[in-house]
């Protein structure tokens, strides 16, 4: 009887546990632990969004840029400047890039690390791209502290881009303004929307490269960083809203550099397993918040929990470990040689010229064939006189010959 009671008690205990613990507990275990919200990383992110909840017009972008300028200026060993430009998008307004530089006067080589700080209208842009700005700031802190003791063999430029949502305007403006120096840029790192997507990807080139190998090897395995699937993200002639295959049209600020032949490393999150050949932010429709009012801090916490901090710090660590790796300079120096030649493969002018040449060749062959047919059909001109068909003296009485 005693054993039976014990057994019943055990069964009841198991039943209570099963009833109380949610079925998706595995996915939500990190949600219960809010300790990540006490980290400096999270506080920076939260403060940035709280102080700049909207960042989609001139005044809002200026306030956000000022905020970032102040934070960047607080890091020792860094020169910070604002670069203003005009946005000719849906409406005309002034925006600015915040540029922080760690100089090495002994070299003209440099790398650029960037993230955009603006957001689409009606969105807080917590994931897109306050997370990127936070990772950018963390990277700046790490690199500045490191370079203070171990000078890097290149300049490092950190850029918080404005007006990305208006069509990559800030990065295009930066690339245009610094066009003469782009040939000395070894690599451009871009960070955009790194938390909310199901998976964390890095896109280097749509094929294996040494730079991709280096980035992945320098990243903590716990971050689960993978390279973007190479042949995904394209329909017809256009990449579907960035992040995809087609190198000339990608949906974030690294595109402006890649188009000028600068190797790029792009960190972003998403899921390529949801749609056929296309990018999706998440398999969970509730998590598809990009450029919507759903992209808020509360949703970022709700759906990602401690992953918010893990991914932001993980990306900052990944970039820092990559650029301070002993082989980085060599790998980056060869990175341009491994790029796909956009001007050859994606410029429609060349295949069109080939078609024109083929049309000309075919035209010539058709003309030759036409003349041959003419001769064979006794409808030819006077030169057919020599053929056996026209050996009769009265041929001119029958046919009219061209002169």
């Amino acid at each position: 009887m005693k054993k039976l009671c014990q057994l019943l008690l055990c069964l009841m205990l198991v039943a209570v546990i099963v009833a109380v613990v949610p079925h998706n507990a595995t996915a939500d275990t990190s949600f219960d632990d809010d300790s990540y919200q006490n980290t400096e990383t999270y506080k920076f992110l939260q403060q940035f969004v709280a102080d700049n909840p909207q960042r989609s017009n001139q005044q809002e972008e200026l306030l956000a840029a000022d905020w970032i300028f102040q934070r960047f200026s607080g890091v020792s060993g860094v020169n910070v400047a604002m670069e203003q430009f005009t946005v000719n998008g849906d409406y005309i307004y002034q925006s600015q890039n915040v540029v922080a530089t760690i100089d090495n006067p002994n070299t003209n080589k440099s790398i650029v690390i960037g993230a955009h700080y603006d957001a689409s209208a009606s969105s807080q842009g917590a994931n897109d791209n306050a997370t990127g700005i936070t990772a950018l700031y963390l990277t700046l802190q790490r690199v500045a502290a490191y370079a203070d003791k171990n000078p890097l063999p290149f300049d490092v430029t950190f850029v918080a881009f404005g007006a990305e949502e208006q069509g990559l305007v800030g990065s295009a403006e930066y690339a245009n303004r610094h066009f003469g120096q782009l040939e000395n840029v070894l690599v451009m790192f871009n960070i955009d929307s790194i938390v909310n997507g199901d998976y964390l990807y890095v896109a280097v080139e749509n094929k294996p490269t040494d730079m991709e190998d280096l980035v992945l090897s320098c990243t903590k395995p716990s971050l689960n960083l993978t390279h973007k699937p190479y042949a995904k993200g394209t329909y017809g002639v256009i990449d579907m809203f960035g992040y995809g295959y087609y190198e000339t049209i990608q949906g974030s600020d690294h595109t402006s550099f890649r188009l000028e032949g600068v190797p790029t490393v792009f960190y972003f999150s998403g899921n390529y397993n949801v749609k056929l050949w296309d990018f999706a932010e998440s398999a969970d429709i509730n998590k598809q918040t990009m450029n919507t009012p759903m992209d808020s801090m509360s949703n970022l916490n709700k759906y990602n929990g401690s992953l918010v901090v893990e991914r932001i710090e993980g990306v900052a660590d990944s970039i820092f470990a990559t650029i301070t790796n002993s082989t980085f300079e060599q790998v980056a120096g060869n990175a341009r040689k491994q790029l796909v030649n956009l001007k050859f493969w994606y410029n429609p002018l060349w295949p069109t010229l080939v078609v024109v040449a083929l049309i000309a060749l075919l035209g010539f062959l058709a003309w030759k064939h036409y003349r041959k047919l003419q001769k064979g059909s006794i409808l030819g001109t006077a030169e057919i006189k020599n053929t056996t068909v026209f050996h009769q003296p009265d041929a001119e009485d029958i046919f009219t010959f061209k002169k």
Partner: protein
Amino acid sequence: MLKKLMSNYNLSNILCKVLFVITFAFSNWQAFMLAANIFGGDNSVVIAIISALLLGVVLVFIVPLIVNFLLNYMRLYSIPRLEYILIVEFFFTIGFFINGLLSLIHLFTPILLGWGTVLFPFLVSVGCTYAFYKVTAKMYFNDVTVVYYFKALAVIFFVASFVMGVL
């Protein structure tokens, strides 16, 4: 089986038109996916396929009109029109099918996308037009009339190639 099919105009006509529509969709589904995404805000495969099939059906009705117009313009009155249109649609079907197969290469080697999008349709159209000319020239023209037929077909082909492949 094939002989029976060739001797039955109605069956051949229906079969050819159905295949024309299907192969048109097969050849152009990537472009329709793109259009569905841009204009519909969605990348639905179903929308793209339905759009392609619908346009294919429309083309089935437009192709005979164009062929009739061109035959009248070229003053080629001695050709049996319905049969000739059937052959035109048959070669279009073959062309669409081959182009569709070649377009699948883009999925596996997207780097060829830029060149393939321009070159594949042109190369396929060259091959199909030549085969079409050889077949129809043998069927409907003699050594004398084939000269004019070749000239007319060549002009149509080069104008169409230049407009669609270059412009």
